[in-house]
């Protein structure tokens, strides 16, 4: 039994890391910004943390804090030009940002190790730490969602003109969402660096972007459960279908296509909506 559990621990670690990144992606979509920059922020956080530990021998706590701060700073910086763009143009700009980070990373070989990546990072982060941070991140997003900020985010996403007419500052809230997104991505990037001994530039490129975005699209974009469910499905299901492990990406693709077509709101949101509708219907039947 123990060995059975132990076999799945790396998977659980991956899940915790990716939940953090999925929440980072989720929070910007929530406020109506089509930013895909989470992968870049995660890279910035990971490299900051990694370099501090390897080159300067800093304590991991300082490394993780620095990773979070640099991820957040990069996000706030990026939010300024992005405020002038909308929709797919934001997506293009942020993909470009990921490419810029990737290139800078490869060119500054002295600092980052270039294409070889950064190696020999002391492993200081275990499963428990990852789980605690994933839980904290989930709590943060959940509490934000049910309060004043969540309501403002919802309004901006659905109709910016209405939001402005009700006194909600669009720029301020989008910048806040960006700051949270960048901080979360930087944090989990830093944790990843301290968890996996080595990081390389490609890890934070286009492939990560697609993976993270799929979690949110698969799970749902309107409630915090969405990214949790999406990450769980997309990490665990291909694993259960071990005999097809070679074709992991094929399964991934098929699942995404099915969900996008039949549950465009995502698995979790569709389920939540169905429950709500059922409750209303039951009440309507009771009162009539």
């Amino acid at each position, binding site marked *: 039994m123990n060995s059975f559990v132990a076999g799945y621990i790396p998977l659980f670690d991956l899940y915790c890391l990716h939940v953090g990144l999925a929440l980072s992606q989720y929070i910007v979509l929530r406020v109506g910004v089509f930013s895909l920059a989470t992968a870049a922020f995660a890279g910035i956080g990971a490299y900051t943390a990694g370099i501090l530990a390897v080159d300067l021998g800093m304590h991991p706590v300082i490394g993780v804090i620095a990773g979070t701060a640099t991820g957040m700073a990069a996000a706030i910086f990026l939010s300024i030009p992005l405020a002038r763009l909308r929709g797919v143009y934001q997506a293009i700009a942020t993909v470009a940002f990921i490419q810029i980070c990737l290139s800078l990373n490869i060119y500054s070989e002295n600092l980052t190790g270039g294409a070889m990546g950064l190696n020999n990072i002391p492993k200081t982060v275990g499963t428990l730490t990852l789980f605690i941070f994933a839980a904290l991140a989930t709590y*943060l997003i*959940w509490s934000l969602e049910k*309060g*004043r900020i969540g*309501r403002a985010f919802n309004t901006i996403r659905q109709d910016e003109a*209405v939001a*402005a007419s*009700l006194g*909600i500052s669009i720029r301020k809230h989008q910048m806040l969402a960006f700051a949270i997104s960048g901080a979360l991505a930087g944090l989990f990037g830093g944790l990843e660096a301290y968890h996996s001994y080595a990081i390389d530039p490609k890890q934070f490129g286009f492939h990560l972007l697609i993976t993270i975005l799929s979690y949110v699209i698969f799970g749902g974009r309107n409630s915090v459960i969405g990214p949790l469910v999406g990450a769980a499905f997309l990490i665990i299901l291909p694993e259960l279908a071990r005999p097809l492990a070679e074709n992991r990406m094929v399964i991934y693709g098929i699942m995404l296509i099915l969900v996008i077509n039949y549950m465009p709101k995502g698995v979790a949101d569709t389920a939540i909506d169905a429950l709500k509708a059922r409750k209303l219907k039951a009440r309507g039947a009771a009162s009539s």
Partner: protein
Amino acid sequence: MTALQLTNLSKSFGGVIASEAVNIEVPAGKIIGLIGPNGAGKTTIVNLITGMLPVSGGTIHVGETDITHAPAHEICRAGLARTFQNTRLLSEASVLDNVMIGLHRHETSSTFAALLGLPSAGRETQELRTQSMELLDRFGLTEFADYPAGGLSYGHQRKVEMARAVATDPDFILLDEPIAGMNDVESDALADIFRGVAKDGKGVLLIEHNVRFVAKLCSYVYVLDSGRLISEGAPDHVLNEPLVISAYLGGDDA
């Protein structure tokens, strides 16, 4: 006495003049009408007041506050609310949530408290919920509170939008064609609501092209044509003016 005051308001798009030296005053507690045929520039005036379009000349004041060049979200904070020509509710959200968001400008819990889900933020949410339910009750919408706003009938959606505007607790409300596409029963119900709002001491600027509705409701009417005010005064007086009649019916020989 405070008023919503447009002074010499002008707007031109390149060479095209959309509004020229428009002077309108909406005193508190009154319903003022702004009418005009299609293309007269009513919507331009709305967009200028609400900060959707930059003003070319003249000033807009809410009471003492100059909002001529204020960004859209600060205009609401100055005490001016609006409804939209085509109702714009958050259709995915419940009716209750739609009204609650109108109370946004009165929320005081800090960003930090909201982020961490501290008790103060939770209490505030509860308070807003209570206030919103009271408003829904006033507008006769209590039974729809939990339904998605997009599923309501057109008349009810208008009411929800009105409740949301009132929720911001403005000094002035701008109504952009509020009864377009409504039957008489629905529009009469809305008229009662508008009168109630004015009775509470709020100034209402009603932009409409249903002349009958305006005449019934407003104490003072401005008539706009080709971006200029061509007449103003009590409804009975204004609607009998030859200039107004010809603007609506087209040409001198009509």
